[in-house]
């Protein structure tokens, strides 16, 4: 009893890890049983990729000063599409959290002697894994239609993967908060829409310089633009500059904000 910290600390952490991985297994089971939602969310980025490359590709390619064969615009577009994939996947997370919170089993979890946040952590880890999987699948489509990042070193690949994972984590925590604050699945899907809209207002499709002057600050000072510029730099060797730090700072700040927000929402008395 005299050294409670020394004895309770490790068990608290191992309890958190154990319960969170149990919750993660539950969420993965849901995804495996009902894959249609995950697949639906994948459809949007793939369609946008094909649309912008094959339908608008000629104009877009000329717009960024590329050649007529669209390959340069494809290279420009892919990092943004990957970010948009993550944004779309996290909307799914917001919806599934909101749906889950209406289930009676959440009340049961609250009356168990388990790590309280494990329900949320299970959702977050599950969602990050889903993001990674989605990015790999959409990336594979991009490669199939001619995207190449052969100049990138192994270290740059690792950094790119890390950045994508970090962005997934940050957006997922925000999405979980959005899901918790929504009364039902429909509301969650509406509330989480900015996660999908923001990439359109970033440098994902066209360079910020090419946008109207009044709009440029909006595109510049939001999380997606530095993240996309950093990813471009890592994969294609374009100038990263201060975007790397900006992206990392955005991610950490959003993850921390989302975590604190979600935790306080979840700790409120349920209705």
């Amino acid at each position, binding site marked *: 009893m005299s050294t409670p910290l020394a004895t309770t600390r490790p068990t608290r952490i191992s309890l958190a890890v154990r319960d969170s991985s*149990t919750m993660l297994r539950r969420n993965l089971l*849901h995804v495996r*049983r009902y894959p249609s939602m995950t697949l639906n969310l994948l459809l949007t980025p793939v369609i946008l990729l094909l649309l912008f490359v094959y339908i608008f590709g000629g104009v877009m390619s000329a717009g960024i000063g590329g050649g007529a064969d669209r390959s340069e615009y494809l290279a420009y577009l892919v990092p943004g599409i990957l970010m948009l994939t993550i944004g779309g996947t996290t909307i799914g997370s917001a919806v599934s959290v909101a749906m889950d919170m209406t*289930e009676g089993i959440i009340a049961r979890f609250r009356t*168990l002697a388990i790590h309280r946040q494990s329900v949320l952590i299970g959702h977050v880890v599950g969602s990050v894994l889903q993001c990674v999987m989605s990015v790999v699948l959409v990336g594979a489509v991009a490669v199939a239609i001619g995207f190449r990042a052969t100049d990138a070193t192994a270290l740059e690949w690792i950094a790119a993967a890390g950045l994508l994972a970090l962005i997934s984590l940050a957006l997922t925590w925000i999405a979980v908060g959005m899901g918790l604050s929504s009364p039902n699945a429909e509301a969650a899907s509406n509330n989480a829409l900015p996660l999908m809209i923001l990439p359109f207002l970033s440098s994902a499709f066209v360079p910020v310089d090419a946008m109207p002057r009044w709009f440029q600050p909006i595109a510049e000072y939001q999380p997606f633009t530095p993240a996309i510029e950093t990813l471009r730099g890592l994969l294609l060797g374009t100038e990263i500059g201060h975007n790397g730090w900006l992206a990392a700072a955005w991610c950490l700040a959003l993850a921390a904000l989302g975590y604190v927000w979600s935790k306080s929402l979840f700790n409120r*008395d349920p209705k």
Partner: protein
Amino acid sequence: MASSVMPTPRRMAAGDSGSAAISVVGLRKSYGDKTVLDGIDLRIPAGSVFALLGPNGAGKTTAVKILSTLITADGGQAQVAGRDLSADPQAVRAAIGVTGQFSAVDGLITGEENMLLMADLHHLPKREGRRVTAELLERFDLTEAAKKPASTYSGGMKRRLDIAMTLVGDPRIIFLDEPTTGLDPRSRHNMWQIIRELVSDGVTVFLTTQYLEEADELADRIAVLNDGKIAAEGTAEELKRLIPGGHVRLRFSDPATYENAATALRETQRDDEALILQVPSDGSQRELRSLLDWLDATGIEADELTVHTPDLDDVFFALTGGAGVPHQTKEDVR
């Protein structure tokens, strides 16, 4: 009461609070302007079945939610399994099992997966978890449906799975919030049997119900909750004694006659749909004769007249409807 004769205060303390599974003093909860629980006191001995009885909206579910750590009270003190509810909710959680009013099963996964999930959350070793799962599925007659998604289960099956999940951690105190609401008669009797088996294992059961029959059938002690207050508490017998007599039931077939009788007899319980009036009466010859004389004198003719000795229904209506019966406090019962 015995404290003055007890030689050692320690034994007194052990005898008084040591055997209480749940003790509550002055529990309060309100949502905005609406007071849901207005200072309730409860003391539930370990190993007993306690029924909290009340009409819809009386605050039963709120009481269960507070005592099972789901929501926090605004005031009052509560100890569950010897642990303070507000100071150490996690220790309370380790001792309790809860089956809420609305099915607390994960509909997207199978019954067996639900059970294994609970085993994992109770940190049972893998083999132990599988053993407990198989055992409980068998006990609750769910083995056949074990591999089907829980969302495909019938109401009774869901409720059984719900209770089976509650039992995974071998809780010493079980909360059942309206365990038979919405079940067909057969499932209800199954559920009663399940609850009786729980008690024979030495578990304390705190159940809420709006069915008097159910409380009478299962509970050692019953508290009637009305408007956020405990209107009466005691055994079924003690509660029945609260009502001095039974009632005379007058059934009519003609609505006009029914209306006349209803306005003439003031202290009655009306059932406008069935055209039935209940007149409080102790069932004695004298009271019955005076009622009959009075009916003759006013020219009211009932189609059927039956005399009822008191049952919990009378207690319930008297306490929650307030029809001519003085409000009893639990001191009168004890």
